[in-house]
């Protein structure tokens, strides 16, 4: 008996800091609300592609921040600093490799995720807005790839960027101006590199982070949709009355408000 109350006391002490945080911020409850959501019983591996894409992006974020500590974005030093990262800095080859190959992984997973959402019909009511946000994320992610490609500043990077910018330049009416904007003038120069660097590490990742936030908010609010072969209604709450098989979405508009944690 005494032993048990001792254990309770210990638990209470361990719980105290969490309660302290929860009472003042609601963060613990918020985290639980975010993590312990109800998902359809027959959601499976296909539904992990979104999280996988997010993870790939976070890897890019982490490795990119570290690479920025060693990279020098001016035309005379850029190539040398990338060589330095690859050959001299401890584990530089690994982090640069993660960033370089991770970029492709991110884009590939992005398209797999998009294909899954499309083929499962998960973009349908009430999730149309989330599809739109996702579609906005695609060109920004591709621009990340384009702007990052110049940064090693070797021959491939330089001429690929020349060609890429000139492709933009052939767009009707505004194309020449868009090309000038990307080039930071009529010719590629030192400003082009720092412009691409700024876009690559500040503007575009910021935009991606903002849109991912919106994307996740909508996922949490609307719930995960069940696969097309499911007997369950898409995104049904566990405590709702069981829907008749194949009846589709049940009362989706009430879902967001009714789903507070208890």
């Amino acid at each position, binding site marked *: 008996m005494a032993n048990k109350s001792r254990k309770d006391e210990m638990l209470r002490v361990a719980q*105290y800091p969490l*309660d*302290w945080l*929860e*009472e003042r911020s609601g963060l613990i409850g918020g985290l639980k609300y975010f993590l312990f959501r109800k998902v359809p019983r027959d959601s499976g591996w296909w539904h992990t592609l979104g999280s996988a894409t997010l993870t790939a992006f976070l890897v890019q974020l982490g490795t990119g921040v570290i690479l920025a500590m060693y990279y020098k974005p001016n*035309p*005379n030093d850029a190539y040398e600093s990338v060589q330095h990262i690859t050959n001299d800095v401890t584990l530089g080859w690994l982090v640069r490799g993660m960033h370089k190959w991770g970029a492709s992984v991110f884009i590939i997973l992005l398209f797999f995720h998009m294909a899954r959402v499309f083929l499962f019909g998960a973009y349908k009511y009430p999730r149309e807005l989330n599809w739109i946000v996702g579609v906005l994320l695609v060109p920004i992610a591709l621009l990340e790839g384009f702007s990052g490609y110049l940064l090693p500043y070797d021959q491939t990077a330089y*001429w690929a960027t*020349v*060609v890429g*910018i*000139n*492709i933009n*330049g*052939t767009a*009707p*009416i505004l*194309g*020449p*101006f868009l*090309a*000038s*904007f990307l*080039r*930071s*003038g*009529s*010719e*590629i*120069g*030192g*400003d082009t590199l720092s412009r691409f660097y700024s876009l690559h590490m500040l503007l575009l990742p910021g935009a991606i982070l903002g849109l991912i936030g919106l994307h996740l908010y909508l996922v949490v609010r609307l719930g995960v949709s069940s696969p097309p072969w499911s007997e369950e209604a898409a995104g049904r709450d566990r405590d709702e009355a069981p829907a008749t098989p194949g009846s589709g979405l049940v009362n989706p508009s009430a879902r967001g408000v009714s789903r507070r944690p208890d």
Partner: protein
Amino acid sequence: MEPHEGQDKPHLPPPSLWPVGFAIGVVCILVGLIVSWFAVAVGAAVTLVFGFLWVRDVTGDYRRREIPAATVDAQGGAESATTGAPAIPASEGEAAMPPPEPGERFDRNMFLEGATLGLGSVIAGIVTVPILGFAIGPVFEHKHHHEVDLGPIENFKEGQFVISTFMLDPSEGEITRRTAFVRNNGFFKGKPSFTILSNRCVHLGCPVQPNGPLFENRKVQQPTKAGDVTLIPVLPAGGFGCPCHGGQYDQEGNRTAGPPVRALDRYEFYIRNGRVSLGKTYSVADVTGAGASAQIHKYKLAGPGQHVDGPEQIFYPLQPPS
């Protein structure tokens, strides 16, 4: 989880001096790290003692928690005792204000809302406009073009193409290194004539290569005020070709095959004191004839891939300043 019903009651720990002593102890440790180990020891002792007292003070309430919070009630009672009567809510008594209808708007309310939004937009505009101007404006400013000195005219044998690489703007360095194919056409109506083709493919801007042998043994490193100019004679018997997407041009720069939409761009040139120098670049729709007597259909410089003549030119009505 701690009870939430206490939210509207004062929930602060009583003021305490212990954290001040704790902070002084920490400062003492940090200063001691530089000054002397003795100070570190004193600081550590002070930190420990005051830290212990602080924690004891803060957790005192928690440790006495089993006792019902009668003190709070006593306080409330004391308050009403001093005022003599319980406070009258604003919605009761003679001076009562009617509770506002839900959704009712007041002039002041709307004014404040408008002022917040309006001032906010003004401030946002004041901040954003110069930032955008800074990001976009410099891109479209006219740049001053330097003439590029290629050295004495004797370096260019008549009828011979020479691959000339030079820096467009030495102050910006190697990044502005460009290549042109220069051919001396001799004299035309008493004036020197040159064909100077830019090596930028007019498909998408890759570097065009001569289709023929280079005479590296006759290479000239010509020093000029704007750094070295490299001159390599070449015989582009098969014209010029682009390695990227296979665009082909003849010796006058006319497109012969592949995706380019016009002829190669050309440089204006000047002869001053027996030296050749390059001026601005211009675009060429096509060239009829060859050499000194060629007819060049000249246009303002356009980007690669952009039509300067024919019906497609309507897609590119304006060019940014270059």
